[in-house]
């Protein structure tokens, strides 16, 4: 084959798996991708989305050049040069700085489109401007992280490969058949050695179908299921009280709460799980070395953090703590990289005032309230808030006050279409990056496999070029070190600690193959806070206990919007290879709920609440609980229009802001005549 080479890439999507990819390149064209066998977690395999990456890179809709739109939203686009685009943006930034005396009128809303380390360059680029406006918080998993910190003072750092050694596995509100397919190798290894698989979910997911036992549960009541399970085990004398008294703070209070306040038949009624089912779960925790994987979905409720605290109490009180294989699996971020792009030194005058922080979960409404100065320039990267955010109406209000909107993306998505400038982003096949996972422990360096597509550039290249334009116009305006290349930034992340944890002397060894972190030496003598003073100080219940989910008297149906197989949130929605019939045009309903509204399969319906209205087609799903409807994310008429003001109970400790209670949404559905 002519000019054939194989290059190491790492998939940077917001996903558990962060797969190691071997890219086959012929004459500078990506012709095929495959998994890298040297990666111990992904083991030479990719997911369906990964195998579709050649279609993604050369998709006919991919943006090739910087473009400018006037007037905004008109569709009247004009191709311009990078120099022209960045020159205009630089002048605007300087003008706003002169107008308001700082760069606080400039801000960004960036999230997880590419979670490689070097994609923090956007944050770095703004840091260079001095105080500015930042979208902060965690859309995804902060409530559960906080819960584990209240219980344990830190989030456990588990190796998901160890799940293969578990004697029983509980998949609690997690759907790896859609979100983490590589984990099945380790789950099935345990099953082949006799481990039972029990799945808990309100939905009969493909993961639930895999379970030896499936417990269907009413949404938001998982905490009660955990309490009831503990009560059964306590009454059977299966809890080691001697050990518990020594290692658990608040055991006596917790115990009397269990004995006095938790009633099994009541628990069965609340959760919808028959007593026999709760006993099945208790039986799994009776044997030691039971793995419990808590998904991110079950903490996207107003009681989500509390739910995770109680499940963790069940895991730890049954002695599933510290051993290999068993224990709680949630989010395994090592946090070992310094992320220098967000830390480089700045001159003292840039440190005098602080950055202005806005909650990413309520970005548009919070920004609308900002004065002195109002936000005037908004930079969007790695994000499509017009399909994925809450309060979408507020975004449209916000556009009116913004003097410049810049979006960096591969495609003309919903937010790009409302921007003044759209800058074409490079895919991860077109530049260097450093990637770690929040699930497995493998670290990899992503290397350029092909030249940039037409004029596409990475976030880092854009940051470097914009900084040069700024400093050309006004020397010293930005303190972002624009001279540093991708490889310079990568090298800087490899502190002596990181090198030691990877067992290498030089970071360049990673160019040959990904490597796994050596586990940190842990003190195993931690205490568990069933009673948490810290939680109390944060105005939360001090005791890990079930708190009931919200309900809404005005709208009877709870709307759930879980992850799909063919997309990562709004990404990949335009790939024909991934057209498995999943559509954002349907709403799934239980036949009883449909019948009560005189609805039949394929009827066109309006799904609505106080936030807005969306049109969908009915699809009947006999496995769906009554009172629950299901829709997928994204689309032309995004379901997130119905999402307003949703806050989880926790998230401030680890995310800086409360998590988003994305599953506390109530709606009604009626025929669209």
């Amino acid at each position, binding site marked *: 084959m002519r000019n054939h080479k194989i290059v190491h890439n790492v998939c940077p999507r917001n996903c558990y798996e962060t797969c190691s990819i071997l890219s086959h390149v012929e004459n500078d064209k990506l012709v095929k991708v495959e998994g890298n066998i040297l990666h111990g977690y992904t083991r030479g395999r990719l997911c369906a989305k990964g195998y579709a990456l050649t279609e993604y890179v050369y998709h006919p809709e991919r943006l090739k050049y910087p473009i400018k739109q006037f007037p905004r939203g008109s569709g009247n686009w004009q191709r311009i040069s990078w120099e022209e685009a960045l020159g205009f943006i630089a002048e605007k930034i300087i003008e706003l700085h002169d107008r308001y005396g700082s760069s606080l009128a400039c801000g960004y809303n960036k999230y997880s489109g590419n979670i490689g380390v070097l994609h923090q360059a956007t944050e770095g680029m703004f840091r260079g401007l001095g105080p500015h406006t930042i979208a902060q918080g965690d859309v995804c998993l902060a409530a559960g992280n906080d819960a584990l910190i209240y219980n344990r003072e830190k989030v456990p750092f588990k190796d998901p490969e160890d799940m293969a050694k578990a004697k029983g596995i509980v998949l609690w509100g997690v759907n790896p058949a859609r979100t983490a397919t590589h984990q099945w190798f380790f789950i099935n290894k345990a099953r082949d050695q006799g481990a039972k698989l029990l799945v808990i979910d309100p939905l009969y997911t*493909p993961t639930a179908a895999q379970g030896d036992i499936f417990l269907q549960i009413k949404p938001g009541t998982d905490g009660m299921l955990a309490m009831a399970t503990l009560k059964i085990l306590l009454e059977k004398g299966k809890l080691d009280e001697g050990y518990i008294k020594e290692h658990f703070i608040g055991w006596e209070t917790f115990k009397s709460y269990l004995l006095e306040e938790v009633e099994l038949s009541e628990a069965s009624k609340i959760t919808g*799980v028959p007593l026999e089912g709760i006993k099945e779960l208790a039986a799994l925790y009776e044997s030691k070395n039971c793995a419990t994987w808590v998904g991110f979905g079950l903490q996207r409720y107003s009681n989500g953090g509390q739910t995770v605290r109680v499940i963790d109490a069940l895991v730890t009180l049954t002695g599933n703590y510290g051993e290999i294989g068993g224990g709680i699996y949630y989010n395994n971020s090592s946090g070992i990289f310094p992320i220098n792009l967000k830390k480089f030194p700045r001159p003292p005058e840039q440190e005098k005032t602080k950055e202005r922080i806005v909650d990413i979960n309520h970005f548009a409404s919070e920004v609308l309230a900002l004065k002195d100065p109002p936000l005037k320039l908004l930079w969007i990267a790695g994000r499509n808030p017009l399909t994925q955010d809450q309060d979408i109406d507020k975004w449209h209000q916000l556009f009116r006050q913004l003097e410049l909107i810049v979006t960096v993306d591969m495609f003309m998505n919903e937010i790009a279409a409302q921007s003044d400038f759209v800058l074409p982003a490079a895919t991860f096949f077109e530049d260097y990056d450093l990637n770690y996972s929040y699930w497995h422990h493998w670290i990899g360096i992503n290397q350029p496999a092909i030249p940039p597509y037409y004029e596409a550039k990475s976030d880092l290249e854009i940051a470097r070029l914009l900084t040069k334009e700024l400093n050309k116009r006004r020397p010293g305006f930005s303190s972002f070190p624009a001279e540093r290349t991708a490889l310079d930034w990568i090298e800087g992340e490899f502190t002596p600690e990181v090198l030691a944890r990877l067992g290498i002397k030089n970071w360049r060894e990673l160019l040959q193959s990904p490597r796994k972190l050596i586990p940190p030496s842990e003190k195993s003598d931690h205490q568990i806070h069933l009673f948490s003073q810290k939680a109390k100080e944060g105005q939360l219940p001090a005791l890990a206990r079930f708190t009931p989910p919200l309900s809404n008297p005005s709208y009877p149906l709870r709307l759930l919007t879980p992850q799909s197989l063919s997309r990562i949130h709004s990404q990949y929605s335009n790939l024909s290879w991934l057209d498995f019939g999943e559509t954002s045009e349907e709403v799934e309903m239980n036949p009883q709920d449909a019948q009560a509204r005189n609805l039949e399969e394929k009827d066109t319906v309006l799904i609505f609440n106080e936030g807005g209205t969306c049109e969908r087609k009915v699809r009947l799903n006999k496995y769906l609980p009554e009172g629950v409807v299901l829709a997928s994310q994204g689309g032309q008429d995004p379901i997130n229009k119905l999402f307003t003001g949703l806050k989880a109970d926790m998230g401030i400790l680890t995310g800086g802001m409360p998590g988003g209670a994305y599953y506390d949404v109530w709606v009604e559905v009626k025929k669209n005549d």
Partner: protein
Amino acid sequence: MTKISTKGFLFNVERCIGCHACEVACKNENKTAPGVQWRRVTEGENGTYHSISCNHCSSPECFRVCPENAYIKRRDGIVLIDSNRCAGCNTCVQACPYHAPQFDLHQNRTTKCNYCIDRQREGLPPACVVACPSGALVNIDLKHLPLESTVPTVPGFPDIRITKPSIRFFPQKGKKRYWLKEEKSESTKNTDL
């Protein structure tokens, strides 16, 4: 000379999570035209899935019905079509119970799974098998398969009597399901196949 064997697949319905990796890995490897699916994942009963491609049958109907004699059955069991001989009559497309021959509208020709024959030469398994994350799909030589632990078909799989496909299945076991207890009904537990 190719050794005599019966190349085929072993499929475990209970381990298939319906992730479509096999299907897209096939497109990534073979670059089939849009709409041409040499391998497809379909939904079965009770949350199960099937992954189906050409089953390289012992009595391939495609081979029998093709007026252009474009099909061959190799000594190793692999059924191939020589698309250059194909006149686009679609007879094989109609005849195959598994929808293995796929008509390519743009080229006016039929193509189908070739068991990743180029990878075979390098000693590599088919791309779909490599991609399977749960071990549900395996390539095997049916000559060496212990028949007692496997079954010839499973519910929802097309009729195997006509073509004798080179695929075997693991039998399905019962599973415990605790459906949501609604206040009105009490019967909630059942065992599914």
